[in-house]
């Protein structure tokens, strides 16, 4: 590769994750995951339901622990990284506290981390201005639209300046137009802050539009099928979607996903897998 050796933000070696090991309902959620993510890289995890993309994200964030394998975040154990407040998290639901105003929501992590009141207010206002909600600081979450709520959630995740941003289908509940706008905004924020972002999504268009690399995953057991490098130049904007290279990438990822989904037509009684291509 032309790029010189960069800092590795996240490194996963031989990660396995088994839910309910030994029990009847044992599920191999992830099998032999190997992945290195550079600092400031924007990585999308894409794949059908049950491919373990959210599980992988939650392993990185130390919300769950791997059954086997070695996972390092900024050279540390994930638990250490969590205690060092290295993670900002954004979920599909904005999960704002409805009893707190917008600015108080953004200030919550800062309160927990013991920032002074003036520092909290300053940072919250700066973050809200970055997501273009400076004028809504004293509104309550229910007074905002879904897209605005999600922007507050992003502001909150970035308020304490974590090095890694973990996003689990953050725009999954938004309509298509809002989603495209949010994609643009997120890219803008990423270019400003240079966070390492792991972005879980169901949308091929979104994954291709946003990321440096797209990790295509397949289910049963969850594993990485392929990692697609996306060389579309930044900054990306509305015109990016008209670029033939963009369409090639979308088609490429779609084909890879079709292979992955093909194994969904497995007959559980026989335990045999019937490929979608095989049926053609």
């Amino acid at each position: 590769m032309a790029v010189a050796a960069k800092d590795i933000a996240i490194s996963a070696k031989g990660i396995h994750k088994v839910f309910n090991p030994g029990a009847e309902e044992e599920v191999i959620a992830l099998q032999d995951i190997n992945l290195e993510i550079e600092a400031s890289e924007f990585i999308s995890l894409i794949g059908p339901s049950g491919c373990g993309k959210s599980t992988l994200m939650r392993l990185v964030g130390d919300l769950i622990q791997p059954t086997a394998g070695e996972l390092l975040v900024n050279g540390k154990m994930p638990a250490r990284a969590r205690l060092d407040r290295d993670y900002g998290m954004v979920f599909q639901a904005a999960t704002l506290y409805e009893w707190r105003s917008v600015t108080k929501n953004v200030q919550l992590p800062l309160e927990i981390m013991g920032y002074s009141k003036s520092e909290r207010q300053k940072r919250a206002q700066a973050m809200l201005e970055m997501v273009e909600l400076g004028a809504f600081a004293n509104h309550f979450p229910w007074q905002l639209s879904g897209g605005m709520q999600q922007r507050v959630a992003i502001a909150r995740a970035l308020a304490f300046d974590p090095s890694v941003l973990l996003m689990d289908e953050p725009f999954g509940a938004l309509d298509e137009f809002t989603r495209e706008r949010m994609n643009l905004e997120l890219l803008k924020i990423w270019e400003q802050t240079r966070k390492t972002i792991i972005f879980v999504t169901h949308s091929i268009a979104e994954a291709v539009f946003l990321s440096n690399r797209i990790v295509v995953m397949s289910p049963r057991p969850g594993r990485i099928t392929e990692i697609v490098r996306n060389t579309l130049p930044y900054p990306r904007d509305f015109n990016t979607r008209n670029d033939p290279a963009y369409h090639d990438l979308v088609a490429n990822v779609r084909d890879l996903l079709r292979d992955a989904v093909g194994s969904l037509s497995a007959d559980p009684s026989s335990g045999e897998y019937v490929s979608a291509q095989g049926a053609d």
Partner: protein
Amino acid sequence: MAPTELQRTTSLIASIRRRLTYYLPTIAIAVGVILLWEVIVVIFDIQQFLLPKPSAIFAEFMLQVDLWLAPDERSILFESSGATFWEAFGGFIIGCGGGILVALITSRWTIVSEATMPFAIAANSVPIIAFAPIMNNWFGITNPASKMAIVAVIVFFPTMINTVRGLTLVDVEQLELMRSYAATPARIMFSLRIPNALPFIFSALRVASALSLIGAVVAEFFGGPRATLGVYITQEAGAFDFAKAWTAILMASIIGISFYLVVLLAERRLMPWHVAFRQAG
């Protein structure tokens, strides 16, 4: 531009008019029911010991008000109302306070709250009022503590159960968020669990406000000082002075409704963000 005095006055009038139109059907129904009651009693010539006329109840009530206001007179009805109010209120504070406290303590340890919940739910189904004679023995029949104890036990369990639910039924992702901030359990308690429990606690307090008055009056049916509403009702009904008995029922209703309204106001004060109040704001 600031609104002029005239604009402000007209908007005030408009808002009063809107409220009146909103409450008009309710007021109309109340007036209608009372009128119908009066008319039926007159037409069918119903004896006062079966059902007194609303006008007779009202006249008796006004007489009691006059007695109460006169410096050298005393109104047993108002004395009774005061006594019963304090029993209900005291029991409410002790029972609800205890319920919330126990819930906060037990929910700190999941095992403890899971172990106590079945007992609390079972106890909640027990007709606590049946213990009233026993409480009379324990605390003394004329001691308000015997009625307060009944009220406290009645409101304790629903408050505790609801509070535990509110503290434990927290959104998983909000807990994960707290985990990602490396928040301490105490922090999670104060920043997440307690605010999350407030709507649950207040719905319990609203139920408890009604239960506490019912508990106090019914406990008094089993005996108590002369000047309490329960005793007043049984004695006046026994003496066939039904207009008097009905004024006591009226007072009990007024206290019960006021109690409920106070809880409602406190609720709006403490959680103006809650879904139920958004349209009103």
